[in-house]
């Protein structure tokens, strides 16, 4: 098991290196220069600035320097915020993003699973139709539309939670809900289908023939088996949240990574773009690893044998 994880971590490093390389060269194709108001600066002034950030070197040299710095954990200095390290900026901004993302993931999947379970247990009943309706809504309304509706009705009209900005825990609630609605819908639909299939399987009949009651059938025998396929979609969902925050943070003016990322792209702030991309890529790969390990926890058939 340890060996397997180490091996996976090795692959992670290679993947990160490839992503860094690719993004680096991709950025060289971005239109415009990092210099704001470049037309107001003279040729000499521009040269001075470019030299300061090492942008006058040939691209291969820039690339080499970047990778060398990267291996030492140095992501460079931001162009737009003078003399501020990208690492510091990211660390400062990761908090709000993680808070919203993790909260949304937990709320979304757990509520979604419950909704799906209720649907499956009361199959074709009133509760099933109700939860299916919610799931279809959640799946079809884009999160930014939902965010706007939330801001207007819950934030402005009812005044329950702050409309935007960051500060107290109350500020996190509306962005979390807006972000959670999609994973909630997906988890609910998936859970319903899987649970219905599981409840129709032979081993559930075996369990019932043993005299196990409905609760035991659903939770002891059904749930774990229904979770196996659900884990498959949890990965992409979690990743969807990482990118979903980009939009939601902008709508709710949350000072997170996403908002910073969008700003950085608009101003060609290469080091920030690079840093954020690498961070998102890392989260991506990390989530996939966690999901793969989760499989083994839930399904004994794919648990890795010792020494494998």
């Amino acid at each position, binding site marked *: 098991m340890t060996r397997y994880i180490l091996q996976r971590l090795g692959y992670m490093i290679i993947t990160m290196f490839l992503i860094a390389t690719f993004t680096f060269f991709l950025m060289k194709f971005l239109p415009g220069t990092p210099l704001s108001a470049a037309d107001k600066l003279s040729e000499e002034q521009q040269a001075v600035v470019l030299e300061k950030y090492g942008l006058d070197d040939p691209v291969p040299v820039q690339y080499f320097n970047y990778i060398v710095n990267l291996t030492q954990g140095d992501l460079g200095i931001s162009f737009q915020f003078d003399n501020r390290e990208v690492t510091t900026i990211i660390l400062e901004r990761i908090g709000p993003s993680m808070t919203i993302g993790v909260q949304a993931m937990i709320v979304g999947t757990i509520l979604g699973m419950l909704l799906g379970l209720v649907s499956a247990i009361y199959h074709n009943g009133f509760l099933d139709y109700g939860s299916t309706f919610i799931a279809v809504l959640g799946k079809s309304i884009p999160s930014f539309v939902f965010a706007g509706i939330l801001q207007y009705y819950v934030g402005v009209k009812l005044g329950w939670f702050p409309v935007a900005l960051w500060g107290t825990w109350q500020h996190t609630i509306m962005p979390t809900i807006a972000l959670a609605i999609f994973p909630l819908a997906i988890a609910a639909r998936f859970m319903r289908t899987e649970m219905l299939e599981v409840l129709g399987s032979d081993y559930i009949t075996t369990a019932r*023939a043993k*005299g196990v009651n409905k609760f035991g059938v659903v939770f*002891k025998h059904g749930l774990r088996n229904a979770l196996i396929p659900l884990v498959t979609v949890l990965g992409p969902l979690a990743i969807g949240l990482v990118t979903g925050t980009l939009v939601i943070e902008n709508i709710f003016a949350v000072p997170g990574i996403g908002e910073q990322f969008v700003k950085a792209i608009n101003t060609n702030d290469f080091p920030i773009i690079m840093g954020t991309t690498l961070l998102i890529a890392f989260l991506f790969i990390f989530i996939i690893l966690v999901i793969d390990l989760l499989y083994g926890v839930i399904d004994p058939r794919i648990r890795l044998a010792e020494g494998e």
Partner: protein
Amino acid sequence: MEKLLEVNNMHVSFDTYGGEVKAVRGVSFDLNKGETLAIVGESGSGKSVTTKALMQLIPKPPGRIKEGEILFEGRDLTKMSEKQMQKIRGKEMAMIFQDPMTSLNPTMKVGNQIMEGLIKHQKMDRAQARKRVVELLDLVGIPDPESRLKQYPHQFSGGMRQRVVVAIALACNPKLLIADEPTTALDVTIQAQILELMKDIQKKTDSATIFITHDLGVVANVADRVAVMYAGKIVEIGTVDDIFYNPKHPYTWGLLGSMPSLDSADEELYAIPGSPPDLLDPPKGDAFAPRNEYAMQIDLEQEPPMFKVSETHYAATWLLHENAPNMEPPASIKKRMEGMAKSSSSNEKGDRI
């Protein structure tokens, strides 16, 4: 002989979008303590539905027991609530399922799956239950039970899994064991082992068994009595000797005739022509009539009642009516029956339970 189970005129239907499927249409039989009843018939004849209905395991909806009663030790199971049934299932009646590959929970340790019933019904704690599981695994012939009970079903072969399924059914010493084609999914050598095992266990525990199969060879081997089902009804019921040596219903003739045997290598294997009726719209009269070469006019018009052949033997065919012409089973089947009589007289018949 004490009666354990009495089924009277049981009807089971499934409400589908296409209409009501009458899967079981008035089945009556009884079962004594310690007795083995085999239910035979082709696929879709209502064998499995009958036994699932006994345990109230029919999914409702779409299924429902339309009428009739199931008296288990005098208590009518059709009138019991789900809660009451949960106390009976696994404890007083248990079921062995057809496919060992799918009837065990893949994410639960084998030991825990067997233990579940013990903890629920016998109020054992885990340590006691565990001890009993080791005994059970030993009883069903699984070597090294101590370490096997910690394993998951995928670590067992098909035959070993079926032994686990048997162990689950036996856990609480049920009075009635229902085996729904327990050997169909297994290869022949394993089939024989599982059958031997079940016979052994029945001898030891003296439980009554309902054995569903479409393998008549298995029937001759394990059963005391046989019920032949066709289109949701029992068409003939009797002791093994009655059914094998003196069958009265043309459908039973057909079944026996279509059983391959080693000494009939030169002749063509008999197949019953046609296919079973659609139970969405069961035919008027005898359901078997359209496939029956001995069918008379009345077979197409009126359903035959159960005619008594002997104290133990009943059959539902108009051929037994006093006005009916005397019909003999076809020659090939007669020859087959004589062959069986010969081979069984050389068999150790006393071994049968």
